[in-house]
């Protein structure tokens, strides 16, 4: 009997042992098996929720560390209608704080006709300034304040541009999706935005843990000089108004490095308020607007002619006031003959006939090879979004005619962008080396500083030719007593007046006036392009863009601490 009971007990003990073993195995598999992730997620869903942790966007600063773009806080005001208890009180408060009509607010806060399908969230206003958002938050937390249940006041990170319209097209802006649009903001969006991470926001304090830190956006230091940018914009705005132009662009660049010191456009827009600004103003005309450069292009034609060896600076030709190229007659700007001219005279009087004579003497192969070497019709790959390529027709293209060889030589029938033109001409200022234009000086992230090094794009002409041409251009400015000249400083440059192509020909009334110049010619510190679109006061670049250039350079030499040539030479000799 006792043995039987002991046997049953052992049997039961065995069964319980097996069951306990199974439970232990199951527990171990749950604790360490593949289902861990599932249970972890279930637990986290019950005790917390996933949040995307977005790092603060990197700032944009000028070359001296002055802020051009930074982060700011604004608020989004919304309603959660299911939680509204006093729609009239809420509407009254919103109307008073947001200075909006009470009736309009009441329509939003009224919950009487709500159905199952009604939205769970109603946006009242976004963005609102920080002080208004904080006022609403303060009212919400007041014990005896208005009943604001159902009101949602959420901070939103926004971008602030302290300079307002200054350099707006260069900088671009950041949308409410935290993405960069246009300019630097778009081109370097990846660097500026950093990398978001997904974290868990725990509701249970016991489980609170530190979330992973996102990679902060890098700070970008641009080559832009805020002071030069400001002065360039002032001079440009003044020139546009004085000469009755529609719009304009000024680029200031270091010819030796390709650093863009200023890129001013007029009109501009306020990126702090981009939603209410005309969309057409968001594009950067300095890199995106193609235009026929006109006589400024003669610098490149002359450079090609000198480099190819078909002429020297002392070469002469007889200007009869007319030349036929490909069956098309070409005349000078004043329809006159200028007689015997040397190459400096050609540049000084900006003679189309002489320029066409040079290109035909070179022949299409040589001429277009040089234009290609100067990067005409190709994007410069400047680090800004929205760059256009321009257009250079070549023999063999369906739209190229023999007459183009003549007209292209003085900048008609060829399309460039302002940045393309200044980059090409900067090669002449820089002893023949064409530098990559760029706006990024350095990137500073949490780990290191990366500095942009100047890069040579090409060497279309030799140093000797570049120096000869610079002296010829300086002499031509002095001989014509150009309005671009600044006392004490020897500079080289060339005006441009281009007719604007329209369907069926050219607009005879409107022009694009421009001036490209650099200085001091023995040690170029800057090259400046001034472009005025459709000036009303005068159609000639010599009367509009050239004085604007002079006005700018007067301020520029002060800002860049460039002494007059005589003083500079004395200082150099004394050291």
């Amino acid at each position, binding site marked *: 009997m006792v043995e039987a009971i002991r046997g049953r007990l052992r049997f039961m003990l065995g069964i319980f042992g097996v069951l306990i073993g199974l439970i232990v195995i199951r527990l171990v598999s749950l604790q360490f098996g593949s289902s861990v992730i599932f249970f972890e997620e279930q637990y986290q869903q019950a005790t917390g929720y996933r949040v995307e942790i977005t790092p*603060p966007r990197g700032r944009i600063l000028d070359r001296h560390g002055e802020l051009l773009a930074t982060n700011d806080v604004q608020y989004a005001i919304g309603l959660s209608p299911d939680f509204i208890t006093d729609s009239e009180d809420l509407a009254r408060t919103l109307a008073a704080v947001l200075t909006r009509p009470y009736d309009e607010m009441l329509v939003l806060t009224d919950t009487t006709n709500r159905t199952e399908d009604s939205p769970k969230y109603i946006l009242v206003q976004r963005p609102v300034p920080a002080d208004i958002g904080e006022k609403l938050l303060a009212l919400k937390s007041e014990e005896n304040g208005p009943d604001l249940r159902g009101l949602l006041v959420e901070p939103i990170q926004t971008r602030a541009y302290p300079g307002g319209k200054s350099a707006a097209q260069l900088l671009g802006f950041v949308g409410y999706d935290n993405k960069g649009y246009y300019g630097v903001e778009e081109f370097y969006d990846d660097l500026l935005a950093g990398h978001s991470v997904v974290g868990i926001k725990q509701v249970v304090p016991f489980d*609170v843990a*530190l979330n992973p830190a996102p990679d902060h956006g890098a700070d970008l230091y641009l080559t832009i000089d805020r002071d030069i940018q*400001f002065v360039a914009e002032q001079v440009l705005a003044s020139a546009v108004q004085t000469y009755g132009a529609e719009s304009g662009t000024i680029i200031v660049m270091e010819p030796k490095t390709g650093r863009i010191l200023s890129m001013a456009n007029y009109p501009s827009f306020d990126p702090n308020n981009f939603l209410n600004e005309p969309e057409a103003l968001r594009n950067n005309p300095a890199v995106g607007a193609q235009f026929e450069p006109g006589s400024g292009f003669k610098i490149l034609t002359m450079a090609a002619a000198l480099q190819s060896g078909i002429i020297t600076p002392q070469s002469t030709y007889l200007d009869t006031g007319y030349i036929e190229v490909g069956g098309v007659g070409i005349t000078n700007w004043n329809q006159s003959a200028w007689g015997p001219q040397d190459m400096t005279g050609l540049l000084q009087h900006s003679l189309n006939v002489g320029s066409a004579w040079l290109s035909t003497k070179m022949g299409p192969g040589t001429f277009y090879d040089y234009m290609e070497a100067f990067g005409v019709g190709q994007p410069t790959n400047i680090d800004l979004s929205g760059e256009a390529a321009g257009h250079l027709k070549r023999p063999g293209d369906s739209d190229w005619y023999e007459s183009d060889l003549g007209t292209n030589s003085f900048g008609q029938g060829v399309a460039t962008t302002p940045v393309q033109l200044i980059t090409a001409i900067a090669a002449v200022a820089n002893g023949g*080396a064409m530098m990559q234009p760029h706006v990024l000086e350095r990137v500073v992230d949490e780990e290191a500083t990366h500095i942009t090094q100047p890069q040579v794009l090409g060497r279309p002409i030799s140093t000797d030719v570049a120096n000869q041409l610079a002296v010829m251009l300086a002499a031509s400015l002095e001989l014509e007593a150009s309005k671009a000249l600044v006392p004490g400083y020897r500079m080289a440059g060339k005006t441009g007046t281009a007719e604007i192509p329209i369907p069926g020909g050219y607009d005879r009334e409107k022009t694009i006036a421009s001036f490209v110049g650099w200085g001091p010619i023995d040690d170029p*510190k800057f090259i400046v392009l001034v472009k005025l679109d459709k000036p009303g006061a005068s159609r000639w670049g010599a009367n509009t863009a050239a004085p604007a250039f002079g006005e700018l350079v007067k301020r520029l030499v002060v800002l860049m601490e460039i*002494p007059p040539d005589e003083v500079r030479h004395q200082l150099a000799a004394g050291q």
Partner: protein
Amino acid sequence: MTHKNLKGAKKAMRTFFQSASSRPIAQIPEISRAFRQAPWRVQTQAITTLAVLAVVMVALGGMYLTEASKAATAGRDVQALQIQKSQLTLEVDRLEAQIAEANSLPRLEARARELGYVPAQPAQMEFLVVKGYPGAPTVAAAPTTEVPNYDETLGTWLARWLSTAFQPGG
């Protein structure tokens, strides 16, 4: 007790103590059995064991509760600090934007004009040699040599290799 019994008892006692003197008490089965079997001792042992277990469990529970409460408090503190950090970050952003706005050039220029300043002209500038002053940031000289594009084909490489490989001394 008779004399015979007394003698027997004495003998037993002698034998007992003789044997006991050569062994430890714990190994003396008679004594050990006598203690073990004492009911008061069994009860005392059980109560003591239970008491120790209870104390240990209470201590463990107390420690767990203390730790849990500390963790929860720390969690609350972390939550509060995270909120404070977010608010401070927003505040810093806002202040930085305000400083930048106050430092913007249109504002500075307007203030300078109010104070009677005007933009300097080149003719008003006087340049002096100051020892140790590096001057305005100088422009770095452009690289004089251009890095050539790598455009060598297999054919040109082979030709170059053949031309150099069979040169005398090369």
